[in-house]
Every structure is written in C-alpha cells, then in structure tokens.
C-alpha cells in the first residue's frame, strides 16, 4: 500500500490540524459588557459579568472540535467521513472549504474545491432560477463565461426547465434542491466536498446525484470527500473511509471495516433504559401519560436468538385513570430506517400514578442485526380516532444474534435486508 501511495498525486493534505472553539458566550456580546469586564480587571475587582458561583467567565473554557488530524487524500479517491454527532466531521469540511481557519496545523489543497456544505447557497427567492444559477455558480467560483457554457447542461440535469425563468420562491422544495445541486455538480473542480446534501430530493434524483458523483470520482479522476450518516450511500460512493471520534481519526481504510468500527462505537446495549425526558415532538402530545423506563425482562444484555420473543417491561406514569390505551412499536435498523411496526390491541388500563406493563414483541421474522425501537402510546377514542399520548423515537436497542439454524451463513444486511422469510419449501420436484 505504502509503495503504491508514493506514486499517487496528493489532492489534500492535513497535518496536525486542530480547531478550537470557545464555549459559552463569546465575548460579552455587547461592547458595554466587555468594557465593564475590562475595567473591572484593570482595577483588580471582580468581573461583574461573572456567573455567580462560578468564579470565572465561560470565556476561558475551550473545546477542541478537531484535535490533531493528519490525513492525506489522493487524487481520484472517494473518501467517506463518518462519526457520531460532534465528532468533528462538519468542522473538518468547514476548514477544507475555507469557511473558517484552523487554530493550529497546516492544510494543503491541490486543485479547486467545490464545496457543497449546503445546496443553494446564495439563492434568493425573488430571483429567477436562471439568475440564481449565475449567482450560485459565481459564488462557487465559476466565471460568467463558464456558467454560460454549462447553462444547458445544468438546466437539463436539474429537471426544472419549464420553471427556469420563474422566481425560485415559487419553487417546491424539491425543485429548489434539484436546481441547486445541479449547479454544484457542474463545477469545474478537482475536489468535491459534500455534507449530506443527498438527503433531499426524490429517490430518482438522489440516485442521479450519486451516479453523478461516482462518475466524477471514477471516470473524471476527481477527488470526492463525502460526509453522511447514511451508511448505504457511503458504501455506494466511497472507496476509502475514515471514522472520526472526539476530534481524532480512529480508523482509516476499508469502507466496510470503517462502518463496523463506527457502528460498534455507536451501539450500546443495556438491559434498561431511562425514558424520562426523551420524549420526541414535545408539542401535540398529552401531558397525561409518560413513558419513564423500559426494561428487557430476564436479560443482562438484550441479545435474542432466532425465535426467542422479546419480553419488555414498560414503566408508564399516568396523571389519571385511563382505559383505552394501546402501544405501538416501530422497529428501526442501524441507520434509523424504519423496518416494521407492531401494535397492541387497545384496552390497556392504567391507574393513576406509576404503572408497569409487560409486553411481548415477536421478532421471528427479523434478520440478525442491531435494532432500535420507537415507542408510541396512543389512546383509542370513542369514535375510533387515535390520539398519540407519548412518543419516544429512540427508546432502546437490542440485537438479534446470528443463528446457527439451517446452516445459515452470517447474515449480510447489505444484500438480504432486514427480513428473514420462512424457509423455502420444495413443493414439487419433477
């Protein structure tokens, strides 16, 4: 590997890059506040802007978003960048896009960068699609002549030809994104940086964008840096992947291995989860009912075998007596895509105060893998209308173990999905 790398052209090199952010309020925010603090320091008095009991302003506290990154990216590589929220992915892209400068270290970029931290930067609702293409293109570094030459391609790719001379404020959000992505995709750049812009647009257009980027990397020899939480697009697009954690690179290499490293660092299996305060969508929900805890029964770690049912105890607090409550559980995969749903019959009765409800979730059809459960409690009204009482998007997680039955190979979600159908029966043999 090292020998091969010697001969390849470097596209981007980061050496010892650190980025520090100050925590809390930066400065006093007002000139008066800063002058007060300064004057107090001069006289040796206590800073009037100090938070009581803290003794010291938050200004002194810092946070290393990136803590010593060394990375060389070669020409023509499609590099995926993954990591949990706050790992430093976006900061890294911001530095490479030159939106902000590093606190320490050096970055060398060989070639022009097309950065898509957001599509449609500089788009203005009052201006027409065409005017916005010029504006956006110019912001991204194209000259007017270059945009003129590419205008046809851009319009063609964007699929919004009929509306190109309409102000973009009249566009649907899909059209807006299509046009914006189209501009960025047609930049004459050697390096493309993308931050999950593909999470938008319809399926067909998403595929078109991915294809366009793959073409850029594979055929045109451009370098692609791609940040995403969607492991499937990382798999499809990238040939190398780094995992960031707390501002450092913890893995660099093969895509599948990187995803494995990221997943195992992200997944946590506990027998019990606290649900207080984890309510999703705080509005529109009733105050009368709350999930407080969830516990997997008879398990130290929630790992289940093929036909084993998942027994769960739910702790629910009710403000008054309720009779017609039902539970709904959505099962989600690692990437938070919903795989299936199961619901209980209505008629769970809750007394005022703390209730313990035991439920059994049959997961026979689920393939081996890691799953997250979303919990919903809803009330079935007298007219048959359902009303959600409490929703917790990521309540708990469990794992279905690889089964040895039927000489199964290790389950590969990438090829086979999440659903294990019953064994195929041979019903005729001629």
């Amino acid at each position: 590997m090292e020998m091969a790398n010697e001969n390849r052209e470097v596209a981007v090199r980061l050496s010892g890059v650190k980025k520090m952010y100050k925590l809390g309020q930066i400065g006093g925010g007002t000139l008066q506040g800063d002058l007060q603090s300064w004057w107090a320091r001069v006289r040796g008095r206590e800073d009037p802007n100090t938070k009581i009991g803290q003794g010291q302003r938050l200004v002194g506290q810092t946070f290393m978003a990136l803590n010593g990154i060394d990375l060389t990216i070669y020409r023509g590589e499609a590099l995926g960048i993954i990591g949990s929220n706050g790992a430093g992915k976006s900061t890294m892209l911001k530095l490479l896009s030159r939106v902000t400068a590093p606190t320490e270290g050096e970055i060398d970029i060989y070639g022009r960068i097309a950065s898509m931290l957001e599509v449609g930067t500089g788009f203005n609702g009052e201006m027409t699609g065409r005017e916005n293409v010029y504006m956006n293109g110019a912001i991204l570094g194209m000259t007017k002549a270059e945009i003129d030459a590419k205008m046809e391609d851009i319009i063609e790719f964007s699929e919004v030809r009929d509306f190109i001379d309409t102000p973009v404020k009249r566009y649907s959000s899909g059209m807006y994104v299509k046009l914006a992505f189209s501009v960025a995709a047609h930049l004459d750049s050697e390096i493309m940086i993308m931050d999950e812009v593909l999470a938008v647009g319809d399926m067909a257009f998403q595929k078109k964008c991915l294809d366009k980027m793959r073409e850029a990397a594979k055929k045109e020899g451009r370098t692609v840096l791609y940040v995403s939480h969607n492991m499937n697009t990382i798999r499809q697009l990238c040939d190398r992947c780094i995992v960031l954690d707390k501002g450092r690179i913890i893995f660099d290499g093969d895509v599948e291995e990187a995803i494995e490293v990221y997943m195992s660092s992200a997944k946590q299996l506990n027998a019990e989860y606290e649900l207080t305060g984890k309510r999703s969508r705080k509005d529109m929900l009733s105050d009368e009912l709350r999930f407080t805890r969830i516990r997997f029964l008879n398990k130290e770690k929630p790992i289940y075998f093929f036909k084993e049912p998942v027994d769960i105890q739910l702790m629910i607090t009710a403000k008054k007596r309720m009779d017609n409550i039902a539970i709904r559980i959505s099962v989600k995969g690692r990437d938070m895509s919903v795989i299936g749903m199961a619901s209980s019959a209505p008629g769970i009765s809750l007394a005022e105060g703390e209730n313990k409800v035991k439920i059994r979730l049959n997961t026979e059809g689920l393939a081996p893998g890691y799953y997250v459960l979303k919990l919903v409690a809803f009330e079935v009204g007298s007219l048959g209308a359902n009303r959600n009482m409490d929703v917790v998007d990521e309540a708990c997680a469990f794992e279905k173990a690889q089964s040895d039955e039927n000489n199964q190979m290790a389950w590969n979600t990438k090829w086979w999905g999440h659903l294990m159908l019953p064994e195929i029966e041979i019903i005729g043999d001629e």
Partner: protein
Amino acid sequence: MMTENTAQQYHTHITAERRWFDLNLKEVWRYKDLIVLFTKRSFQLTYKQTVLGPAWIFLSPLITSVIYAFVFGGIAGIGTDGVPSILFYMCSNAIWTFFSSCVNKNATAFKANANVFGKVYFPRLTIPISNVLSSMVQFIIQMLMVMGFLVFFVIKGEVHPNWAMWPLIPLILIHLGVMGLGFGIIISSLTTKYRDLAILVTFGVQLWMYITPIVYPLSQLGKGTMRTILLINPVTAPVELFRLAVLGQGTINCLFLGISAAVTVLVALIGIMIFNRVEKTFMDTV
C-alpha cells in the same frame, strides 16, 4: 481533466497564522463576475415587486431633495449662495447618499452575509467592493437627474458650473468611496463581536450628515468652533470640492483637503488590517 499544472496552479496553503496585509487581489480579480452579480443583485432586489419599479431610483432622491429644500431652504431659511435651492439639495444629496451608503452597506457586510459566508469560501472582499460599486451606480443615476436640472438652470443663467474641474469628480468619488469602505469595514468587523454597534452606526451616520455641509453650504457658517469641526470632518472637503465643480459654489482649503486624504489612507489601511484579522474566523463568533 486535471494536469499537474492545474493542480499546481490552484495550490492553496492554509495555516493558522494570519498576516496583516494579505489582500490577495489576484484572487479577487478572478471573482470579478461575482462582484458584478452582487452589484446587479442589489438593484434587482430593491425594486422587485414594487409598483413603480426602477422609477424609485429617481423618485426617492427627488422627494428627499424637495423635503430638504422645503425644510432647510424654506422654513429654516438657510441660504444656498445664490444657487437654486432644489439644485443645491439634489447635488448635495447625491454625493452624501453615495458616501453614507458606502458606510451603511459595508457596516452590515459580515452580518448580512453570514449565512453565505458560513457555507462557501469566496474572497470576502468581493462584498465590500460590490457595495461601493452599487453605490456608485446609484450616484451616476442620480447625477443624470441632476444634469437635467443643471442644464435648465445653466440656460436660465442662474448657475455657473466650474467645467474645468469636472475631471476631478471621479477622483472625489474614489476618495469618498475608499473612505466609506474603510469606515464601513471597521464597523462591520467590530459588529461581528459587538452587535450593539450596528444601532449606533445608524444614528452616527445621520449625525455625521449634519456636521457635513450637506443641507447648508460651508460659507453659511462663521468662524466659530462649529466651523472648525466641519473643516476637520474628512467628508467636508470632498463635498465642497464636488459642489464647486458642479455648481460653481464652494469653499476650498488645501490643508483640509490634505487632511481628508490622509484620513482616507489611514482608515483604508486600518480597515484592511482589521478585515484580514476578522475575515478568516469571524464565522466562529458571528
């Protein structure tokens, strides 16, 4: 396809250190089409979805001048050294609007464009430059109207322009443009950290107009402290020079013209220095 050359040509080296006077004008020049687009957009956006559209470019300065003529010329009875008051106020208003819009637009340059700056890199200087350019276009349009009135009054024999000094007008514009840019950038860089400065600026610029001979000629003031303040004000000299050329009325003092030029150079240098410091990391504070 990229060759070794293009890769070398576009080599960017980013370090933590920031230099004081690194303007990278070559890069700004590469983005000249963007400057033109920004300039055009400021006009397009102002007049979209209005009934009268571009007519406002003429109407608003005309209305302002009529109000000035009524309030200051009519009610307050301030003389205009024999120049027809409507012409005097239109002329003063044009040059002041140019300067104040250079200051005001640039004072909000960082904050108003924070969302764009936070997502894409392009030379930040393109924004202040296009602000000055759009102020200049606005000025030229206003001057077309002034010319209409001027021709009328010249034919009537009431005004005697100093035609020989007209070639100086572009220089006056550059002078005021650079000064406005400098002040604007300094304020803008400070407002990324201190938000309340922005409010101060609005009042400051208004006040500034009254200590500049805009709604009255310099000659109307006697010898007192007020006159000294007016003369030290770096905008006074270029304004008087401008009116001397266009209307043949004005008081010029070489010393104060020199001071004005020196202030411009100083402000521009400080502005560039602060701009360079703030530009690279202001996204973290804004």
